[in-house]
């Protein structure tokens, strides 16, 4: 394998890993704080991508489209949280999984209603290439990676430096105690859910120029996002970041060696890690509430 191919493979892996990270962080945060498995994050991903497509068509600026995607994904997740999840926080974990799968499938139906089933292309905002160790690398992919790291830093600062963030971290440990301190837990849940939804929307918007936007795009990345969350451990942000980049590299480098490996190898790795540590790399042994 030539060095050029390897470099571009690594960059590709980093960018795809960044997308996985942005999506998985929503699932992970929701599980950590609310003890729900929110499959509808994949819907906000599609919403972000479609909004990016439509706004790009109207305004001609992809970044504006991504921004719109993030905002609308946040609004949709707010509505879903208020209408549906509000009623099911108290129930079992499986309950939230079934309900959110319903939201996901129903949402895909809504998307088909508005945008049809034909895959849509979104232009890449930056066509420039940059030279890294003798390899031409698209700048856009590097920007995606940079945004993922910015989001990680932002989330870290938010969780460690603000009162709300600290309350969320405390809530992940023990929600009753946080409530006992007089903090409005239900508002905390809403904020976390909107953050998760908006980040998924961001992932969709950033991913849109790299792939075709189609109604079932959420289902296509579903397996990978799951693997990221499982390998990293539910509820751990650091674990999610690390496993997202592992899975990204495996997908990218695996497909260079033998194309079908891209889909199979992450799964094999996930099984191996689960064999050694059933809660994932950084998963907490926390039980259900």
């Amino acid at each position, binding site marked *: 394998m030539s060095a050029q191919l390897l470099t571009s493979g690594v960059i590709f892996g980093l960018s795809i890993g960044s997308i996985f990270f942005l999506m998985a962080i929503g699932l992970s945060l929701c*599980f950590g704080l609310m003890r729900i*498995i929110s499959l509808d994050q994949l819907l906000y991903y599609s919403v972000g991508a479609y909004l990016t497509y439509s706004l790009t068509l109207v305004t001609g600026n992809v970044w504006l489209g991504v921004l719109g995607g993030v905002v609308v994904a946040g609004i949709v997740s707010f509505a879903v949280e208020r209408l*549906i999840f509000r*009623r*099911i926080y108290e129930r079992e*974990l*499986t*309950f939230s*999984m*079934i*309900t959110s*799968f*319903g*939201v*996901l*499938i*129903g*949402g*895909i*139906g*809504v998307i*088909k*209603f508005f945008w049809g089933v034909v895959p849509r292309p979104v232009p890449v905002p930056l066509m420039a290439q940059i030279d890294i160790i003798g390899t031409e690398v698209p700048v856009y992919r590097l920007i995606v990676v940079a945004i993922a790291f910015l989001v990680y830093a932002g989330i870290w600062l938010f969780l460690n430096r603000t009162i709300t963030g600290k309350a969320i971290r405390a809530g992940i440990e023990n929600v009753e105690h946080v409530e006992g301190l007089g903090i409005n837990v239900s508002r905390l849940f809403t904020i976390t859910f909107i953050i998760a939804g908006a980040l998924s929307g961001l992932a969709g918007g950033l991913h849109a120029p790299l792939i075709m936007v189609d109604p*079932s795009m959420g*289902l296509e990345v*579903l*397996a990978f996002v*799951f*693997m990221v*969350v*499982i390998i990293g451990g*539910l509820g751990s942000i650091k674990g999610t970041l690390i496993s997202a980049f592992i899975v990204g590299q495996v997908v990218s480098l695996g497909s260079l060696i033998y194309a*079908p490996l891209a*889909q*199979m190898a992450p*799964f094999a790795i*996930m*099984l191996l890690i*689960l*064999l050694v540590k*059933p*809660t*994932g790399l950084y998963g907490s042994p926390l*039980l*259900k509430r």
Partner: protein
Amino acid sequence: MAAMVNAWRWWWGILLAFFLVGLSRLFLPLPFIIEVLIFSIYTMGCSFLLGRVGFISFGQPAYLAAGAYGTAFYLFYFGSNPYVGILIGILSGLAVSGIVGPLFVRLRSDYFALVNLALAVIIYYLMQKVLAGITKGDNGLWFLTNIASTPVLDLGKPDHFFIFSILVALAIWAFYKYLDDSVFGACCLATKINEDKLKFLGYSNYGVRLLAFVIANTTTALAGAMYAVYLGFVSPEITSPARAADPVVVTILGGTGTLFGPLVGAIAYTGMKDVISKLIGNWELFIGFLLVFIMLAGEKGIWGTLQPWLERLFSRKKASPAAGEGAGARQ
């Protein structure tokens, strides 16, 4: 004599249910009833896992595909006897669940759900792309003409296939009712409700779960094998992630963990699908919101709501509490 009365009491709910299904042949189209029967067998495994063992499985299509492709490979490449094909489908389902089972049942229920769905997606890719040379990719394997006619029940004929599927469903239902009554069934419930106490009693949670997992998923593989023989073709669409929720929806629609829930759910679901896909083309929209609605409305399902009502009706009529108990599902 007493033994016979007991046996009758044990059997009559199941026999009545399938007698009614058989009777519906008179006024319902044949493909619809066969679809309902296979679908209810498909759902049975999921219902058992969810209601009895407490495992939510979005990965059922994976095992359905294992059964369907096992049958399809045999009928396409090797033989022509549909019974042998179905047997091979069941065995391949057994093999797949036997391989992944020991890994999966160790997991916490949340991880189990995620890993299982990931397995379904992986099998989808496997069948669609990786093994495209053998599975013919999205075109699927067509082997309807390969199926040889067999004596007694000729599975190539829809009428005979209908009788065959009723008999299979009857056997499956009797088997699961037997499981519910047995010590093993009680262990399954115990591992769902309180695994520590089951451990105190000297049972292995792992063993109980593994056995339940293998039984349920082999049932699902049987449904896959029956689909393969009935339709005469198999494509990766059978394990498409978009359909992963179907068995879970039907389970909850019918009533989770009840004996007749899967059957009632399958009738309601297939019926609605037929009616609604004629009215609106957007099937996902409907199924998604139906799922959310059932979950918010109280998750008891159709049979779960009907059953107490039926029991009251029966016990009043016959004035004997024993008859009411026999009226169908336990729990």
